[in-house]
């Protein structure tokens, strides 16, 4: 399975939402062996209360690891076009996985997602979704905090934040008939602070925002009011949020892994 095939299935050239698919993980699929992962782990989950795609509803699946890929396939079976917005580098260039396990070297282990995208490709391909299928945007819920309980000096900091510019604008969504967005998360109904910047812009443009927790997956999506996140619409939001310039309002991203004072040299 070549990266080009995997990418073309998840971002078909003629599907209008494919332009937004983030390509970085697809550029790394060859470095990760899907055989290491149990294909059954990526079997679709059930999303009974998500309405079938009718063109007026879009999804945002903000879920961790392989759960996100599994839900993407479930959404595709309901007629939504998964649009991966995973936007982090899985491993540093020059990294040799035979010397150090990747999971022990990076703050955010994206291996399950990369492998999941690869394993689920044939399933998605068989669904033969129409090009005009409405989008189901996929985000990694662990993007800001990482997947490891502890972070060590020397780790590769590949955390990321979601930005409004990663998504279509509200005007474009509305012009294509999208009137509501359902946010699907594991537990909480409240969006993560970085995603709230996008959802609030959509809400202000009269797109209805609903939320669904996988924990209560049998319940219908509930309308929510997205609160104004810190630094909303500030030009320097991303500068403040990234690069470790300062402790940021997005919850830890950009913070630095402490370096012991004895480690010089």
């Amino acid at each position: 399975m070549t990266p080009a095939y995997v990418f073309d299935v998840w971002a078909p050239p003629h599907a209008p939402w494919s332009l937004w698919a983030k390509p970085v993980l697809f550029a790394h699929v060859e470095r990760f062996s899907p055989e290491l992962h149990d294909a059954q782990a990526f079997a679709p989950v059930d999303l009974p209360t998500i309405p079938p795609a009718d063109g007026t509803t879009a999804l945002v699946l903000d879920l961790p690891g392989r759960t996100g890929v599994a839900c993407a396939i479930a959404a595709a079976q309901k007629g939504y076009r998964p649009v991966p917005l995973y936007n982090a580098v899985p491993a540093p260039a020059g990294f040799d996985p035979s010397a150090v396990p990747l999971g022990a070297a990076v703050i955010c282990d994206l291996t399950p997602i990369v492998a999941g995208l690869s394993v689920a490709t044939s399933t998605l391909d068989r669904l033969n979704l129409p090009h005009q299928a409405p989008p189901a945007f996929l985000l990694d819920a662990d993007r800001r905090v990482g997947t490891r309980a502890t972070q060590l000096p020397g780790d590769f900091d590949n955390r990321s934040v979601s930005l409004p510019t990663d998504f279509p604008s509200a005007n474009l969504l509305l012009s294509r008939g999208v009137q509501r967005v359902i946010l699907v998360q594991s537990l909480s109904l409240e969006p993560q602070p970085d995603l709230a910047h996008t959802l609030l812009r959509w809400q202000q443009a009269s797109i209805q925002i609903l939320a669904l927790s996988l924990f209560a997956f049998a319940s219908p999506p509930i309308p929510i009011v997205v609160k104004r996140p810190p630094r909303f619409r500030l030009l320097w939001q991303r500068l403040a949020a990234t690069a470790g310039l300062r402790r940021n309002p997005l919850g830890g991203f950009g913070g630095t892994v402490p370096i012991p004072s004895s480690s010089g040299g």
Partner: protein
Amino acid sequence: MTLRPGSTAHLTPEAPQWQLACGPPLNLPAFHDIRRRMVLEFCKWDPQVQDVSTLAPFPLLLPEPQWRQLARDAESLAAETLLIERRLMERPDLHVHIGLPRRLRQLFRGAQPPQYTPAIARVMRFDFHPTPDGWRISEVNSDVPGGFTESSAFTRLIAQHFPGAYVPGDPAHSWATAIHSHHEPGLPVALLSAPGFMEDHQVIAFLARTLAAAGHRALVCTAHHLRFTHGRAHLDAAWYKGPLAAVVRFHQAEWLSRLPRSVQWQPLFTHGITRVCNPGAATLTESKRLPLLWDQLDVFVPAWRRLLPETRHPRDTPWRTSDEWLIKQSYCNTGDSVAHAGLSTPRKWLAARLDVMLHPRQWIAQRRFQITPLQTPLGPMFPCIGVYTVDGRAAGIYARISSRQIIAYDAIDAAVLIQPQRAPHDLTSKETP
């Protein structure tokens, strides 16, 4: 101009030979193929910014005499910029006037010119704009110029469909060659960027691949992984621990200076022995306030004086009321801090005015120039032609186009191809002039 049989697009025969023009768009399958190769093979990981596709499906065509002129001008500007840089190393008392952050001023104050960390593969990019009065520059990207992926791989892929034209160089290849000629064999090169910025990660990932293709071991890292012993750089990362041959710094100096004191970023600027691309001294000439000091530095900079619009301290111009002036921050990296009453949103204009009032030494006022728009398949667009120099030699072009007169983060990358004047069959494999 004739075309090679089987080419998928045609140069515009009626395009005037003396000015920048837009070529025809590629057909959709050909462009999809290029886009896919860019994202999967050449680390172009931000091909879409909100509703804007950031890769243009058509080239910009630059007549060969124009390219020769731009290349000469860029080389003159690079030499003059290094002269300014050397003078500024000798005059730390002037650093406050260029808007240099305090921690960098403190660092440079304690260093004589020989103690500045040495350079390897010094790269600059000069942003040219066509105007009714000829080419003008808006700035030099002296600290951490980006755009290598687009100016090298993207331009090469587009050029394959226009065999009557040629590429103006391959900046990434020139850069890798310069690294190769200076660096210590056997040791890896570390490429440093700030975490979280995909647009920066993609640049160093591409440069790392370019170095690896040239036979070097290239390692990506953040500033937190660097250690220095007697000025020699080491990497202390989970994937490599040991000495380094060189450090490629794709982390803006003013951001580095704000990192916690436990991070050893200072030897990238002064008292370092391991060569750095670009070294910290490049921060001095990144400032947009340099023109205010030309006279005090007693430097002969004819190319800068000819090509840069009049630049003044904000207090010396009627920028608040006059349409002829815009303001920009002294360390303005993406064009996002350029402000003008007629071009900026009211909110941004107000914020800029307040900031000029509070921090006048962080801003300059520059006389506006009218950029000649290009007619493109996307409508009229304003071009910015960024000419790289590597170790003082012109090395290629990174072009962006925007529907606004200010080139910002959401501009569209375009390949620039050179239209030769001689018979095309002689010139399809022509190298950089």
